[in-house]
């Protein structure tokens, strides 16, 4: 055993060491700042929790079945909002994706990439706040919020798909004298459509979750009932709403996973 020695450890350069130390100090400072300045009124929160616990938690697990009709109506509306929004987003994001794809637009793709990341920085619900003011507190405000909010991510995914296509086919068609439209329809589209659809369906899953909360700011769907139930402290109804969301989201996740595995 005596002459078995471990290989020497790789020597860290001074630069690397100082970098690690600086990062560690920054992270430590961030945490010190966070935990020193955060202000939680523990006594009040705990007192309220002790008072409310038996009023909230048991009732959540005892859903109000009489509200099932209303809840399923609103849940259906939520699904419709998500569907209309996703389809709109899928259509809107195609031109944006071509604008942001490097192999299609060359240097101008930077503009498209900036537009897409600007859209992605807006949370859906903030867009919903804007659209509720603009078109009134209706389900259509939710559709617009979902459509604009989703085309940021969809456009990014789509442009990455476009960037990965086999350019040999495009060049072969160019060499044969095809015009740009012909190239688009016969060389580009067949390569990207399955993955486009797969991402669009995936985004529909995400949009179901997003549209179920948009109602909190007045943009229609089940969120409207969430905000009523919480302001009336009707936790039995909230239990029913939660149950509906969990069931619908699980079913759609499952169906979408099945469809996507078939497409791609």
């Amino acid at each position, binding site marked *: 055993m005596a002459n078995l020695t471990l290989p020497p450890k790789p020597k860290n350069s001074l630069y690397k060491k100082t970098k690690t130390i600086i990062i560690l100090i920054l992270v430590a400072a961030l*945490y010190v700042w*966070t*935990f020193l*300045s*955060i*202000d*939680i*009124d*523990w006594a*009040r*929160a705990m007192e*309220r929790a002790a008072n*409310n616990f038996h009023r*909230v*938690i048991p009732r959540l697990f005892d859903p109000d079945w009489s509200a099932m009709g209303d809840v399923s109506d609103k849940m259906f*509306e939520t699904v*419709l*909002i998500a*569907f*209309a929004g996703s*389809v709109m987003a899928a259509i809107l994001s195609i031109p944006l994706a071509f604008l942001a794809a490097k192999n299609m637009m060359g240097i101008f793709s930077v503009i498209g990439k900036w537009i897409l*990341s*600007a859209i992605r*920085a807006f*949370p859906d*619900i*903030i867009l919903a*706040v*804007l*659209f509720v*003011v*603009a*078109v*009134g507190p*209706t*389900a*259509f405000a*939710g*559709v617009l919020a979902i459509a604009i909010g989703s085309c940021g991510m969809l456009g990014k995914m789509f442009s990455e798909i476009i960037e990965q296509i086999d350019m040999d086919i495009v060049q072969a068609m160019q060499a044969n004298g095809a015009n740009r439209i012909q190239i688009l*329809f*016969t060389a580009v*589209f*067949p390569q990207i*459509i399955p993955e486009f659809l797969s991402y669009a369906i995936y985004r529909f899953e995400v949009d179901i*979750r997003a549209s*179920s*909360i948009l109602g*909190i700011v007045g943009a*229609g769907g089940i969120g409207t009932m*969430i*905000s009523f139930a*919480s302001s009336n402290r009707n*936790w039995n109804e*909230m239990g029913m*709403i*939660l149950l509906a*969301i*969990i069931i619908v989201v*699980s079913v759609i*996740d499952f169906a979408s996973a099945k469809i996507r595995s078939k497409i791609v």
Partner: protein
Amino acid sequence: MTNPKNSIADKKTIPSIYPTKTKLQVTVIFFVILALYLFSMKKTTEDMVNGLDGALGNMFRVLAKFFPPNFEILKAIWNPMLETIQMAIIATTIAAIITIPLAILSARNVTTFKPLYYITRIFLNLLRTIPDVVLAVVFVGLFGIGIFPGILALIIFSLGILAKLISETIESVDMNPLEAMRASGANTLQMIWYALVPQIAPQFTSLVLYVFEINIRASVILGLVGAGGIGLTLNQQINFYNYPNAMTIIIVIFITVIIIEYISTKLREALL
């Protein structure tokens, strides 16, 4: 969508790459989706007072009310914005700690005891179906208005995502070091610490940063239901019809999200 485009190609006697049956299926699916879309558009716009055209014309007029943004309130929204970031930091840290046992339990290659694996998986899947704002509503009902329910909601919400992503990372590790250690008599904890942790540490940090980005976006909106942070201020300004102030808050949120995402993306690129 596929079919009309392919039929253009067909006219030029190029043999189609798709069989007739597929084309028929795609046509049917296309029309079903179109019909569903028209139906949902009709349903979602039917309770609008002026109809679609009135609303779209109105939209730009109303949106103009948000401009110019009132930058004088920047000083007042500085604190809620920092509070929002702090909420996200605390929630991400706590979620990252709690997620470790959950992720190990829901990784197929480490948890060989099947029932435990399936129970954790189902639990995490259910957790992920509940939207963050709904969690915040419940916790606000329980603990009252403030940042504490917001942090709790963020922890639970990010736990579901983080545990799933990390368990997938664990499932894709190289099992040879673990087996070598077991062969030389290491116990499970030693195996996890010496063979598993070094393999997943970079991905773990990267995923935690990614979830931090998600938490920043989520914490921005939790205030809309009373769970602290900048959303609370935004909600107040909207309710007072104080649109220029609201626009300033929206711009501040926008810039913060972009800066944090930029830093986090750079850090993640350096890590992997």
